[in-house]
């Protein structure tokens, strides 16, 4: 048994350590982005399971009497918003890679606006429903979908907004070309943009699936 304590030294970092931690940090954003998609998948998969389970078991013949449907114009409008948002994200990122920061910023702010619009539509749809929440299995799962979709839209819009705001802050602090620089801040920022774009692409796929489930089928 050793009786002496190891004496803590003074905190210092070598350049290698800084680079190591920066890589770990960027790797974390990458891993975290993918893991978040995994978590999101399990959450929406539960809703999809509920939908198909109730649909196939059709208890009391109350799955969807008279084939009630939530207002399709809302559905398509929200879907269009989601689609445009993810297209803007992908387009914006490709422009960003080519060094067109201004394009990315415009795409970003547009996406924020569209996201807020979609969120508003999703919430407003609740008061325009032709059925009450417990009237059928479809109605119930639709309400569940609406809530989840609203949360997703809010989270996505928040993510886009914070990224765009961060870009402006970077420019303010470090000058006009700070976003494309090789500083740790800029690298971290770009990794975040990449993860966000990836998630939006995925959210678009999920949105398509739920559009089919709730408005088309």
């Amino acid at each position: 048994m050793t009786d002496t304590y190891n004496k803590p030294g003074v905190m210092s970092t070598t350049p290698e350590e800084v680079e190591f931690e920066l890589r770990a940090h960027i790797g974390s954003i990458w891993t975290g982005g993918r893991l978040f998609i995994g978590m999101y998948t399990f959450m929406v998969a539960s809703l999809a399971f509920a939908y198909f389970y109730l649909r196939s078991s059709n208890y009391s013949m109350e799955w969807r009497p008279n084939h009630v449907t939530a207002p399709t114009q809302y559905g398509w409008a929200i879907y269009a918003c989601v689609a445009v948002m993810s297209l803007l994200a992908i387009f914006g990122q490709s422009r960003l890679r080519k060094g067109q920061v201004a394009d990315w910023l415009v795409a970003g702010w547009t996406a924020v606006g569209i996201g807020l619009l979609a969120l508003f539509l999703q919430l407003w749809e609740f008061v325009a429903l032709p059925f009450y929440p417990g009237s059928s299995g479809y109605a119930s799962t639709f309400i569940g979908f609406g809530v989840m979709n609203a949360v997703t839209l809010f989270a996505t819009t928040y993510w886009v907004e914070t990224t765009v705001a961060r870009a402006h802050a970077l420019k303010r602090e470090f000058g006009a070309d700070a976003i494309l620089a090789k500083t740790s801040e800029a690298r971290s920022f770009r990794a975040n943009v990449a993860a966000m774009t990836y998630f939006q692409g995925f959210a678009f796929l999920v949105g398509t699936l739920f559009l089919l489930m709730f408005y088309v089928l």
Partner: protein
Amino acid sequence: MTISAERPTDVVATPPSTSGAVRRGGWFSQHLGTALIAAILGYLFGHWLGNHIAGNYTPVVNSGVNDLANFFGLLFGVVGWLLGIGALNYPLAKIAGRSGTEKTPDVEGFSKYFRYSTDHKTVGLQYVIGVCLFLFTGGLLAMAIRTELLNPTTHIFAPSTYIEIVSEHGTIMMMMATSIVVGPLGNYLIPLMIGSRRMAFPRIEAFSFWIFTAGYMVIFSALPYGGFPTGWTGYAPLQNQAGPGMISYLFGFAVIGLGMMAAGFNIAVTIINYRAPGMTWGRVPIFVWSILATAALLTLATPVLFSAGLFGILDRVDQTAFYVAEHGGSSYLWENLFWFFGHPEVYIMALPAFGIVAEILPVFCRKPLFAQKVGAAGMIGVALLSFFVWQHHIFQSGINPDMRPLFMLTTELISIPTGFIFLVGMGTLYKAKIRYELPMLFSLALFFNFLIGGLTGVFLSDVPVNVTVHGGFFVLSHFHYTIMGGLLFAFMAGLYYWLPKMTGLMLNKKIGLWQFWLMFVFFNLTFFPMFIIGLLGQPRRVYTYAKNLQGLNDFSSISAFILGISFLIFAWNLAYSWFIKPEKAPANPWDSLGLEWQTATPVPVHNFDRIPVIMTDPYHYGEPGATALADLSGVSSSTGNPA
């Protein structure tokens, strides 16, 4: 899209992000007190809002109960709690473009333990206290259960009170058990064991703790609401029928679920990305493997519970009909969703226990860990398989009856990777030099208890036998053997082993021995009779039972009271060893080779002076002249390329 494009190869040195500035918090900066005040204000606001919206709806007027007000009260209470503690400072500042990498220096000094700290060591110690509060609350309720079951006909509690107690005990214990190892030991030790100076997402880590404490208050709030009658499984549609306490259960699990996801997310990402140079997957300590497998389950299984809880809340506050068959829902839907989460949850509790004992055994055997790779593979195997067994909880429910052989098969298959932990343990014991220190005793007790728990699991998974043992005291005893006999014993082993590192003070061995023997003996005397009680036909969660079972029940109850005392002895040991007769812990009291013991005690904020370079795995016991575990002088400039 590839991320590799984002990784320039040139090295740019930037000054360390953690500055040396010391921030001292005043009385009015954010801490536990402001959090409590904000939570109360949030609750009052939410309650008012809910009443404003739904106060004149027919169901509310008729029953005099407004679920929406209760739900909004709790929801805004939790938001207030997070605001008050400071969890939302950064997310809000982010809207204005604050950086993700810059880090506000933590408040230093003692009050950091009552604040939103992003130091994983502070969070780890906060968790120790947090889970203990959870554990003692659940334990108190367990004592109440055993008191009621002293007599089959004379009732100490009213039936409604008894169901409240049972449900609250189960739920509190289940919530606590998800975090009991990952929270305190995982957060504290993972960076130390993988040679990292930090967690990947320290704010998410701090969030996980403070939302966990919010979850405690939410589930506790069920009691003033009159409790909930469904047990921890919360079966619908009883869930829909229950009183307002059910909201606390549903929302409480959602809140705790957020904490579980946050904790798992941060830990998984940290383990994947922040391993020190040279720490290949083959060199990762087995405890880290177990926490990684657990983190995977936490992140992927919990969202399902979250959704199920959302549906349940909607059913109650919005009168949807997810779980009501007359309106197109299904009572089976909850059973499926809940157990799809519920079974991985069981392994969320078992895997860290395996990790702890596998980590401790070689130290006290002075031998390398036997079959480390098989052990790690077993943990991953258990984690994967646990997603494919959920229907064994509902064998007799009439769901997919022709799938029962399949789920019987997957369930029994899972005992193969679970059995690996016995291979690891028994292999390590072979021709060892065993020192009977307290951590070792608790670890060995796990092998004794978990064996009984595991073997009875095979009985439960056998569909014909399941007919008799399902829903009775047999299954109750089975999972207490695995969770309490496994996880809690491992937790105690972990505390006795690592608390000297975490606090710098040894725990008293003599008091610890009293605790161990009382706990071990009376744990078995409490729960073993329950197998027989169950086989003789006593269902779970009943306040009255057949008169001929009174003897066994009384035996079990009295043992349970002594088991409860053993936990008080543990509390006494903490008090004794920390204040009455503190004994400074040596730097490496167990002569462990683990990396966590190589750094200074108390652990400095930056964990390691240099990021260590790992040379080998930490189990080279009994091997004179073996390679040193790690080069603590870090990556030198000459070998600048981290592995």
